[in-house]
């Protein structure tokens, strides 16, 4: 009987241990963007008369295996059954869509030769001819219809048990797809959908015949697409290997080089730990790595065989303040915070200057960002003035502002990744006599419900805007609370303005671009003036590659597109 008591107690310990240990290493998936360096190779040719001719060779070189260190795991190889960016990155190197997006965010035709909005709720796409899937079959309107039907029909995905595609929401109003002829399809919408083109970028076409033959389970094991690379082997948690598809039709006409990819092979490896990715890059085991933490940039910058690349992300950062409880229920206090924080300095010191200061609730790269908004700017005197108006002064001269005998104190909640910037911010407020401290939450899922219920005071965080459109982004942060669901999906400040709600609702269905601009400009101005947040900055995505990687850019939507990339050696 020696063991039984111990067994019971060790079991409980084991369970607790699992929970505790898990609190140590949260990997965070992120997004990317790039610079385009061109390396010049010098070829020396010798003839009898002319001693030396120097011929610079600039341009694409075929061959090579590109190994990419991803920061998160891949969920599936079924283009209809996921919702995360890492999976999208891998899938879109094997699958193409009707349209795609350039690394600077423009929507371009990919499999479609033309896209026409016929009557506000009907899109007609004419497909390119001569596009083949990796198994040799031609791509036709049948495949497009099959792909979209699988996404929009309830419970259309049968494996492992019938469920609806998690990508349905991405093309919400698409109601049905009609085949006009072999190379023409029409998408019928239930309502006007101004962001349709931006959203269709996220749907990739699968081959109908092959899919029906193998089923979802078989397809995940041996996926067939019409993208630049075809699947070779791999497992989702480890690595995915793909090789060049020689019969590739070329991709988007506006994204040179058009034609089959240059690389022989692409391997996506999962390396969730940032220091491991950096080590693997330095050791030459991988050629490109995702999300380089800012404190590791100096290490990589000194390495001649490595190049750090950065570009704007799609995640604007703010300090959201709970507008429903003191001290931030007073708009003067919230404005004071905007003057009291020097976002530029935080950006320079904490993020190495990689990013831009933002003026309001949207990223400046959002297609509907109001260009007339100016950042409040650092003005401590004005901040103190506003605070004094609101009743906050240092009456007992202890270095802290107070009111009715209580000092101005609050806690800023953060996730571990935002800790340095929040500490910088708190430090600046401390200097002004505001006792701001930072509390780091290892598990965001615990913090989030508290914020949505209005139980926290301030939060330094960010929110993704990958469609470059306010739909799905503005609504999540600044639309007032939805009955029964706390503050909606992500309105941590609890901000509520009926006029803003109205404008957001109108903007979602307004087809006229000019009018949409007006609606969203007004909404942004209101949020700016009422300042439910300190508007901070749009941090860059930072990635790194071997110096020999050419024509690779950090894409604003976070993807790593390997079609156009080559090695210089």
């Amino acid at each position, binding site marked *: 009987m020696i063991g039984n008591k111990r067994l019971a107690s060790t*079991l409980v310990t084991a369970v607790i241990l699992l929970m505790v240990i*898990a609190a140590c290493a949260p990997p965070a998936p992120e997004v990317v963007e790039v610079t385009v360096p061109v390396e010049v190779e010098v070829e020396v040719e010798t003839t009898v008369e002319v001693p030396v001719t120097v011929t610079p060779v600039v341009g694409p070189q075929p061959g090579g*295996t590109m190994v990419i260190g991803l920061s998160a795991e891949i969920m599936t190889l079924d283009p209809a059954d996921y919702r995360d960016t890492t999976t999208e990155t891998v899938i879109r190197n094997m699958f193409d869509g009707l349209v795609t997006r350039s690394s600077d965010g423009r929507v371009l035709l990919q499999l479609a030769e033309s896209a026409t909005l016929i009557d506000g709720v009907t899109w007609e796409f004419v497909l390119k001819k001569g596009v083949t899937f990796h198994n040799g079959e031609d791509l036709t309107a049948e495949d497009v219809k099959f792909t979209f039907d699988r996404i929009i029909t309830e419970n259309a*995905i049968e494996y492992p048990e019938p469920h609806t595609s998690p990508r349905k*929401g991405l093309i919400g109003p698409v109601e049905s797809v009609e085949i006009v002829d072999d190379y023409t399809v029409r998408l019928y919408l239930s309502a006007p959908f101004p962001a349709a083109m931006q959203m269709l970028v996220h749907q990739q076409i699968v081959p109908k015949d092959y899919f029906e033959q193998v089923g979802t389970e078989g397809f995940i094991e041996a996926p067939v697409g019409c993208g630049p690379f075809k699947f070779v082997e791999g497992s989702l948690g480890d690595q995915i290997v793909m090789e060049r598809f020689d019969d590739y039709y070329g991709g988007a006409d506006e994204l040179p080089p058009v034609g089959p990819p240059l690389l022989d092979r692409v391997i996506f490896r999962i390396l969730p730990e940032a220091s491991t990715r950096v080590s693997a890059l330095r050791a030459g*085991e991988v050629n490109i790595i995702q999300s380089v933490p800012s404190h590791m940039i100096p290490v990589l910058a000194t390495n001649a065989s490595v190049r750090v690349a950065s570009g704007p992300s799609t995640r604007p950062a703010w300090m959201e303040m709970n507008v429903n409880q003191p001290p931030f229920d007073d708009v003067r206090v919230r404005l004071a915070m905007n003057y009291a924080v020097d976002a530029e300095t935080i950006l320079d010191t904490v993020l190495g200057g990689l990013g831009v200061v933002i003026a309001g609730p949207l990223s400046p790269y959002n297609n509907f960002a109001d260009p007339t908004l100016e950042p409040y700017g650092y003005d401590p005197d004005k901040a103190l003035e506003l605070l004094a108006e609101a009743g906050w002064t240092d009456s007992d001269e202890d270095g802290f502002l107070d009111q009715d005998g209580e000092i101005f104190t609050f806690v800023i909640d953060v996730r571990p990744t935002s800790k340095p910037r929040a500490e910088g911010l708190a430090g600046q407020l401390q200097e002004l006599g505001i006792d701001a401290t930072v509390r780091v939450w290892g*598990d965001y*899922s615990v913090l989030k419900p508290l914020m949505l219920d209005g139980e926290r005071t301030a939060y330094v965080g960010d929110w993704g805007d990958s469609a470059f459109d306010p739909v799905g982004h503005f609504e*999540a942060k600044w639309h007032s609370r939805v009955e029964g669901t706390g503050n909606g*999906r992500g309105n941590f400040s609890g901000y509520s303005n009926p006029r803003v709600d109205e404008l957001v609702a109108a903007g979602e269905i307004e087809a006229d671009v000019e009018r949409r601009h007006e609606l969203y400009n007004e909404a942004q101005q209101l949020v700016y003036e009422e300042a439910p947040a300190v508007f901070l900055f749009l941090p860059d995505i930072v990635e790194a590659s071997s110096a020999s990687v050419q024509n690779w850019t950090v894409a604003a939507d976070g993807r790593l597109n390997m079609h156009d990339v080559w090695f210089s050696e």
Partner: protein
Amino acid sequence: MRTVKILERILAVIPIMFGVAIVVFLFMRMTPGDPVDIMMGEAGYVSEGEIENLRREFNLDKPLHIQLYLFLADAIRGDLGNSYARRAPVSELIAERLPATIELALGALFVGLVVSVPIGIISAVKQYSAIDRIGMAGAFLGVSMPSFWLGILLMLLFSVRLQWLPVAGRIDYGVELRTVTGMYVLDSILTGNKAALISSLSHLVLPSISLGAAMAATVARILRSSMLEVLRQDYVTLARAKGLVESLVVLKHALRNALIPTITVVGLQVGVLLGGNMIVETVFGWPGLGRLVVQSIFARHFPLVQGAVMVYAFVFVMANLMVDVLYTYLNPKITL
């Protein structure tokens, strides 16, 4: 008699697993955070309908006791449910990842024992000698150093600077290997594949050391102190008085008794190996179960966490059962 007892103990695992299942089920659901919200909450363009559909699909719309009933009813039939994010049966995902985790745990166990046993014995026999002091200082370091930090240091030295060993992964791309057990080192030996053996071993070294170091340290310290205690007992003096060779006295008479507390600790360390796996797997990009569990805990993917914890619990119970069985061989006075 012993066989019957062992069978009895194996049967006793059933209620234990049942208890574990219920505890994990409740713990996961008591933890704040909603799996559907974590999955979809920050994606743009999510409709209420979609959220409701997912909730229904995952049975999260049902009362807790119904959820528990559905989970247990399926679990009894061996169906642990489907992963929320990976959209595959949990049992399949665990089977896919478990061999890598076991391989790493065995590697660590090997490192742990190979290092600790000699150090423990020599330190005790030559108490206060230089070897003892160095060994115990090393053990102190090993116990104190977190495995992820040791892992990163080893990686910087052996992979980045010296480039002797790979940074991450399990085997080099291009090395062909027919998988039998899913444990690459074992598979290489079974299929007589030398290239694969070298490649998989070189990938296994650093993670095994990172994971096994703490265990080596703990075991060395326990073994040393139990050896010291045993070596002072009368029967050891008697053995020496009989004129037995010192090595025989130490290895045959003393070690056998000193092993009882040591094996207890090794059994308990299996739990630490499984737990530590989660961290080391993340650091070394090792595609094992631990990493999957960590991600699933953060994402509140209940079925996967439940399934994996049950696997861990089973391994843990079995390891401790083996320890108990070993006792009876080491000391016939102990019965199961």
